């Protein structure tokens, strides 16, 4: 199936990025690129710097060194608002939804950047605010349909099982119509069936919306199955980069995962 999907030019490239927290060097001169429409995985043992890398990409952390190129523009560091405005959305390792709000409302928050009306217009439910609400609701309903969560539309998120919450979070990220979607361990803590569902949705997102995906994942089976190219980090350094098959056979990767006698 992925053969028919057209992988395009490089949309994002990271050059020699280094990030340190005091004496802890989380990332050391990491470089890689992400192509349009591809599924790019970042893997590595615990503490390898995967989540830090994602946080650098959407501007939560600011690297001390290096450059990030996104959509033909070069940045020394990203700003999170700017990243969102440029079409970078993400999900979190620990679900970060509004627990007391319904699924629908949570997804609507994902449309935040698409809303232009001011507070007064919305409070008084004026024409433009109403139209805007309807447009956005429609977009959200399409996502609900896409993710097959019609039955929980009006359910508060806190009452949902974990697997569904993860799906809702993916939905909220999709609501922003991102060009680049960062997924931080979308399948962590799921059972086999939930994982299979999630894999299907991730691939569908990629296929249907053409969204470029960068994902962190621990489940090797998942990574090898769904990603086009894989970056491997270990102790903040890039140790391998390539197709799943290339990475699988790489001695450094095997050492990093299985340990090696020093």
């Amino acid at each position: 199936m992925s053969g028919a999907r057209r992988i395009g030019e490089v949309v994002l490239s990271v050059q020699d990025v280094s990030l340190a927290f005091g004496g802890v060097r989380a990332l050391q001169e990491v470089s890689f690129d992400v192509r349009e429409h591809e599924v790019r995985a970042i893997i590595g043992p615990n503490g390898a710097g995967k989540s830090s890398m994602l946080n650098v990409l959407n501007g939560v952390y600011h690297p001390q060194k290096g450059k990030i190129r996104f959509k033909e523009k070069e940045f020394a560091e990203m700003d999170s608002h700017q990243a969102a405005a440029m079409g970078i959305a993400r999900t979190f390792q620990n679900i970060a939804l509004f627990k007391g709000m319904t699924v629908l409302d949570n997804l609507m928050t994902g449309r935040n950047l698409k809303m232009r009306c001011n507070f007064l217009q919305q409070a008084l439910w004026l024409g433009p605010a109403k139209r805007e609400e309807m447009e956005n609701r429609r977009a959200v309903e399409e996502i609900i349909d896409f993710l097959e969560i019609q039955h929980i539309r009006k359910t508060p998120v806190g009452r949902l099982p974990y697997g569904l919450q993860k799906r809702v979070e993916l939905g909220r990220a999709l609501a922003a119509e991102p060009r680049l979607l960062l997924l931080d361990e979308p399948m962590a803590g799921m059972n086999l069936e939930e994982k299979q569902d999630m894999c299907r949705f991730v691939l569908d997102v990629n296929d249907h919306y053409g969204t470029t995906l960068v994902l962190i994942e621990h489940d090797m089976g998942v990574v090898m199955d769904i990603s086009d190219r894989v970056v491997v980090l270990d102790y903040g350094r890039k140790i391998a980069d390539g197709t799943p098959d290339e990475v699988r056979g790489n001695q450094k990767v095997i050492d990093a995962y299985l340990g090696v006698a020093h």
Partner: protein
Amino acid sequence: MSIDIAALDTFPKLLMHHARVRGGKPAIREKDLGIWQTWTWRRFADEVRALASGLAAQGLGRGEHVALVGDNRPRIYAAMCAAQCLGAIPVPLYQDAVAAEMAFPIQNAQITHALVEDQEQVDKLLEILPQCPTLKHIYYDDPRGMRHYAQPEVASYDSLLAAAGDNFLDAEIAKGRGSDPAAMFFTSGTTGAAKGVVLTHHALIDRAKVAAEMEKLGDDDVVLAYLPPAWIGQNIFSYAQPFVTGYCICCPESAETVMTDMREVGPTYYFAPPRVLEALLTQVSIRMEDAAAPKRWLYRRFMAVANRAGGALLDGKPVSAFDRFLYFIGNILVYGPLRNVLGMSRVRVAYTAGEAIGPDLFRFYRSLGINLKQLYGSTETSVFVCIQPDGQVKADTVGPAVPGVELKFTPERELLIRSPGLFKEYYKNPQATAEAKDAEGWFHTGDAGYFDQDGHLKIIDRVKDVGKLADGTLFAPKYLENKLKFFPYIREAVGFGHGREKVCAFINFDIDAVANWAEKRNMPYAGYTDLASRDEVYDLVRECIERVNADLAQEPELANSQIHRFLILHKELDADDGELTRTRKVRRGHIAERYAPLVQALYDGSREVHVEAQVKYEDGRTGTFSSDLKIRDAKTFAPQAAKRAA
């Protein structure tokens, strides 16, 4: 107008008629992207015309068969009518059937064209394509995930609508005769292989019309179509009857949203097999158990009043003024809100059929003021054989024959039916046809029963299932099972006893109800299998069984059918393992065979039995599972001791 309608002897003619006389009235609604979208009769007719032209251009001809696979969607029904316009015969198939199950109908009916809902169904058909050489065209409705399918057989539903010119169509529609086959339904097959039941336009239209007149259905009625369209029960309510009366059907958004959709739609005419009613009651019971103490008290108090007065009020029987007053209060405080939660506030006529319904379950709905009635029929009879008329509703009968139907019994108590709604034949199976329908046109139902003193038909069980215990007393397993299944904790039961000295049973508990019960007791558990091995759960089930036994002890002819021993099965009975039919009826013979060692253990007095089972996963793989099942005894009651125990 009435003369007009009588001349309309096929479904396409009826559709064109509705498009003319009530073109602006809603025909089908579907919830899409959270909003109910309406097709008027005119829009429906336009869609059917466009689709029929497209299918004609794709070579669909008179007498050919078209498979329809999907959930209730306007387009599935449009496809059904479009095929009929061309004189082709639609064959709805169960959308949840696995691919292998679809191969037989397709081969048997030599299906050439298939219209399916989505990628899932396309995949199934492509999988069996090599075994089905006649199948040349597969059209899908939902394009999701379909972009990379390059198979020459696969095309979109939308591509069919683009065909030009439907001038020839009116002539084609006019060519249709009432005696032509209108549709073919494959019976679920509790016995042997599936058979294609061929029903004519005349049979379906005649029965739909008689029943609609009896209940005074009109074009303002609304029905929620939520059961598989491949089942005649759904098809008659969401296709034949709306085409006769012009009422509107509503398609839910997804299987999970039926409850919410039903509340939004507020159907006036409702049909549910006992299983669905049971599930609803279980949900109500669970939610009431979770409610605060004052609410629980209120519910108990007023349900007692409803039990006493509700059914009688609905039947127009005399009720004391005080009870009337209490019922009035209860209606404001409990029954009204409850009907609203169930989505049944507007229900004028509700039917239940498909299998026998537990009397308590039946009474529950009637006591709430919902006009639930029983219905008897089958695929072979275009459903309507018996209907309980208003005011003559009883829990244990299915009512007198509807106009046009003749009934009689064989000496073995098997029910025979002659009706204008009878099927034409089993497709390409003259032997089975001859066995089921004799030379004088009597259809042998295989159901055992008798008429009660009011001339109402009473069905006890299948003829082949009614057995005798070793001492010669009557054993009707379904009767026991239904009694057990009324308890919210018990989902499925299988009784054994024919030719044995006592009755024993397999139990499947209801996972939702028991899980809730376990949570209340702070009992951690891993899942069904784990709960099934707990002594606490065994005690819970035993109490239910003992209450049934106490009940049975009061019925002289069934007192010997009390359940002596039981076990809780390690897995839920499942249609994918062939243990239930697709309409979720227990396949007794298959279960007895598959679990023969368990049945033996029930009778040889052992306290435990080892089970090693093969499990079929949804993706088709198989695995094995082994565990030790406990067997427990239940208390039985001597007939005279019954009063004290109850």
